[in-house]
C-alpha cells in the first residue's frame, strides 16, 4: 500500500484499503469540498466522522448541526456564499431534508447530499441495507424540479462519483444525490486515488461582468438554461427567494412566470440528460435477458449474468451508475434492437426502479424484491433467468 501521509493534504494520492463512507468523504475533499454540515445517522456517520477530522486539516469548515433540517440548510447557505458543500444522512434524515432540497432546487443553489440507504420505512433496520429511497430522491420534495442521483457500487466509485456529483451540481445548479447503500458504505475495498492534477474540477460559472458594472440579474438565462451564479459577499447584491421569481430574483407571483420557471428547473436536467447519465454495460450486445441493477445489488447481478452466460443464456447487465436522470434513451435503444425478451430488476425495495422500466416497455419484467436488510445473491437472480 502506498498511501500518502494525511494531515493537511486534500488529495490522498495513492492506493488505499478504504471504507466506502470514507472513500466518499475523500472524494468530496478531492473535489474541493469547503463545508460540511451534518448530523449523525447510521450508516452514514462515518462520512461525518472522517470529515470532522480531515476537513479542518485542509482549511474547510465542519459544522455539526442540531438536526438534519439545520444540516441541509447550512450547506445551502454555505453554497450560496460560494462553498462546495456536502451533507450525509440516511432515510429518516433524508425525509427531514426534503423541504430544503426544494429550496435549493428553486433558488438553484448547488449542493451534494449523500444518502446511505438503509432498510426502511421509518426507523426500520438502522444498520442494514436498503435501496428504497430511489423514488424519494427524484420526487421527495413538493413540486416539480430536476435533480441528479448517482449510485456507487464500490468504495472506488464512492470516491469517483463524489467528484462527478460536485461537477454536475455546479454545472446545472441543482441538488445532486449520492445514493449509497449500507453494504457499499460499510464495505472496505481497494481505492486508488489519482494525483490532484488529474481530478476533474468544473466549477459553477459566475457572472461575466464585474460587480457594479451593470446590474446583475441572478436568474437571467442563456441557451443552456443555467444562470450564472453570484455569491454572497462578491458585491453583486443578489436577492434569492423560494417564492416564484423573475430574472431579478424578486417575487413575481403569476401563473405564467411560475410555469416558465418550473419548466426550466426540470428542463435543465431533462434536456442535458445524456451529458449527466452514466451506466455500465456487461454483455448487452445480443442479450435476450437484460438485468437492470444498481448499488450493491449490481454486484450480485454481474455474477448472475456471468454464470448465466457460462451456461449458455444470452444475458447482460445494464448497471445504472446514474439513477436519475433514468437512462430512458439507452433502454429504448436496446428495445429497438428487437433481441431483448425480458428484463430482470433486482432491488432492495418493493419495486421502485421497476416502475421506471415498466414505463418504457410491455416486455415481461421479473422482479426480485426484498424490503430491506438483505441483498439478493447471484443465485436469487440466476434462478429467474432462463
Amino acid at each position, binding site marked *: 500500500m502506498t498511501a500518502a501521509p494525511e494531515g493537511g493534504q486534500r488529495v490522498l494520492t495513492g492506493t488505499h484499503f478504504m471504507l466506502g463512507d470514507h472513500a466518499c468523504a475523500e472524494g468530496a475533499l478531492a473535489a474541493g469540498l469547503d463545508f460540511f454540515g451534518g448530523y449523525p445517522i447510521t450508516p452514514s456517520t462515518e462520512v461525518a466522522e472522517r470529515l470532522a477530522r480531515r476537513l479542518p486539516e485542509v482549511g474547510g469548515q465542519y459544522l455539526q448541526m442540531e438536526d438534519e*433540517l439545520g444540516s441541509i440548510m447550512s450547506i445551502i*447557505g454555505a453554497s450560496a*456564499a460560494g462553498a462546495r458543500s456536502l451533507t450525509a444522512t440516511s432515510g429518516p434524515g433524508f425525509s427531514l431534508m426534503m423541504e430544503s432540497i426544494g*429550496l435549493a432546487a428553486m433558488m438553484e443553489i448547488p449542493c451534494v447530499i449523500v444518502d446511505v440507504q438503509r432498510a426502511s420505512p421509518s426507523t426500520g433496520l438502522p444498520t442494514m441495507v436498503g435501496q428504497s429511497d430511489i423514488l424519494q430522491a427524484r420526487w421527495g420534495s413538493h413540486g416539480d424540479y430536476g435533480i441528479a442521483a448517482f449510485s456507487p457500487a464500490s468504495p472506488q466509485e464512492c470516491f469517483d462519483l463524489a467528484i462527478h456529483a460536485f461537477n454536475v451540481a455546479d454545472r446545472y445548479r441543482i441538488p445532486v444525490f449520492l445514493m449509497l447503500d449500507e453494504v457499499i458504505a460499510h464495505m472496505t475495498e481497494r481505492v486508488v486515488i489519482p494525483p490532484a492534477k488529474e481530478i476533474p474540477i468544473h466549477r459553477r460559472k459566475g457572472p461575466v461582468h464585474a460587480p457594479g458594472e451593470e446590474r446583475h440579474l441572478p436568474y437571467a438565462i442563456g441557451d443552456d438554461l443555467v444562470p450564472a451564479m453570484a455569491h454572497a459577499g462578491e458585491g453583486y447584491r443578489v436577492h434569492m427567494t*423560494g417564492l416564484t421569481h423573475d430574472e431579478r430574483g424578486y417575487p413575481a407571483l403569476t401563473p405564467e412566470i411560475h410555469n416558465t420557471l418550473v419548466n426550466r428547473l426540470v428542463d435543465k436536467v431533462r434536456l442535458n440528460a445524456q451529458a449527466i447519465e452514466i451506466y455500465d454495460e456487461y454483455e448487452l450486445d445480443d442479450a435476450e435477458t437484460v438485468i437492470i441493477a444498481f448499488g450493491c445489488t449490481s454486484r450480485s447481478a454481474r455474477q448472475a449474468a456471468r454464470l448465466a452466460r457460462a451456461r449458455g443464456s444470452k444475458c447482460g447487465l445494464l448497471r445504472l451508475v446514474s439513477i436519475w436522470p433514468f437512462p430512458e434513451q439507452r433502454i429504448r435503444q436496446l428495445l429497438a434492437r428487437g433481441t431483448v425478451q425480458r428484463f430482470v430488476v433486482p432491488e432492495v425495495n418493493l419495486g421502485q426502479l421497476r416502475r421506471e422500466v415498466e414505463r418504457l416497455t410491455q416486455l415481461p419484467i421479473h422482479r426480485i424484491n426484498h424490503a430491506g436488510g438483505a441483498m439478493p445473491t447471484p443465485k436469487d437472480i440466476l434462478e429467474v433467468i432462463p
Partner: protein
Amino acid sequence: MTASPAVIATSHPNDPLLRADRFPHILCPGCGIGTVIHCYVDAMAESGVALENHVCVSGIGCSGRAAGYVNVDSYHTTHGRAIPFALGIAVHKPELRVTVISGDGDLSAIGGNHLIHAARRNMNLTVICINNFNYGMTGGQAGPTTPRGSMASTAPHGVHDRPFNLPDLARAAGASFVARWTILHVRQLREAILRGMHNPGFSFIEALSPCPTNFGRANALGTGMDEMEVYRQRCRIADSLPPFDELDIDLVDEARPIVVGNFVDIARRPYESV
C-alpha cells in the same frame, strides 16, 4: 393659518440601501416591519462594514419579506430555517456581517431548535425577531408569543398557553447580546442592531411591532397608532438587568409593564471554526 405642503420628494436618502424599485412595500399601514427595516439599513450604513459584506437572511412571514427590500445580498428562505442558512454563510465567510430578520413564529416555533443552538454556540449572527404576537401573513393565527388571553384566528376562545419570554430564552440558550425594544424606540433599536453587528457572537434583538390588520383587529386594539399607544404607555425601559421573569409580556394585566432595554451584553467566546 392653513396647512402647507412639505417639499415633495421622489426618493429617500436611504434609498441606495434599499431595493427602492420595489417600494412602496407590501406591508400594511401601521405595521412596524418597515420601521425595523429602516433601523437595520441605518445601522448597516453606520456599521463601518462595507455594504458588500452585509448579508440579510429571512424566513417566511411578513417579517421575512424584509430581506427582499434591502440592497445587499439577501436570501428569503424557508419557514424557521433562516438561522442555519445564515450560519452556513457566516461560517464559510467569516468576514461577512450576517443579519437574520424574521418573525416571532418563524424564529421561536418552527425555528426554535435552530435559535437555541445558534445561541448556545454564540455563533456570529445578529437576529432581529420582529414580534407582532401572531402569524400575521397567514391571517392572524396564534403563535408561541401570543399573550395569554388574546384572541387569534386559531384561538377563538382566547389563548391559554403561556407565551415565550424571548429575551429570557435567548439569554438562557447562550446569546451574548440580548435586547428588546418596540418600533417606537427607533434610536435605541438602531443602536441595538448596531451593537449586534459589532458583537462577534450571537445577538438577539426582539422588536415589538403593531399588527393592526390581524393581531390588532382581533384584539380591538384599533389602528397601528392605537396599538403603538398601548405599547408606549405600558413600556418601561429597564435601566439595569432585570429579573428575567419581569420580561414576560402580559397584555391583559394593564398594571404590568412591558419591559424593554438592552438586557445582556457580555463578552463570551464566540464560535470559531476548528
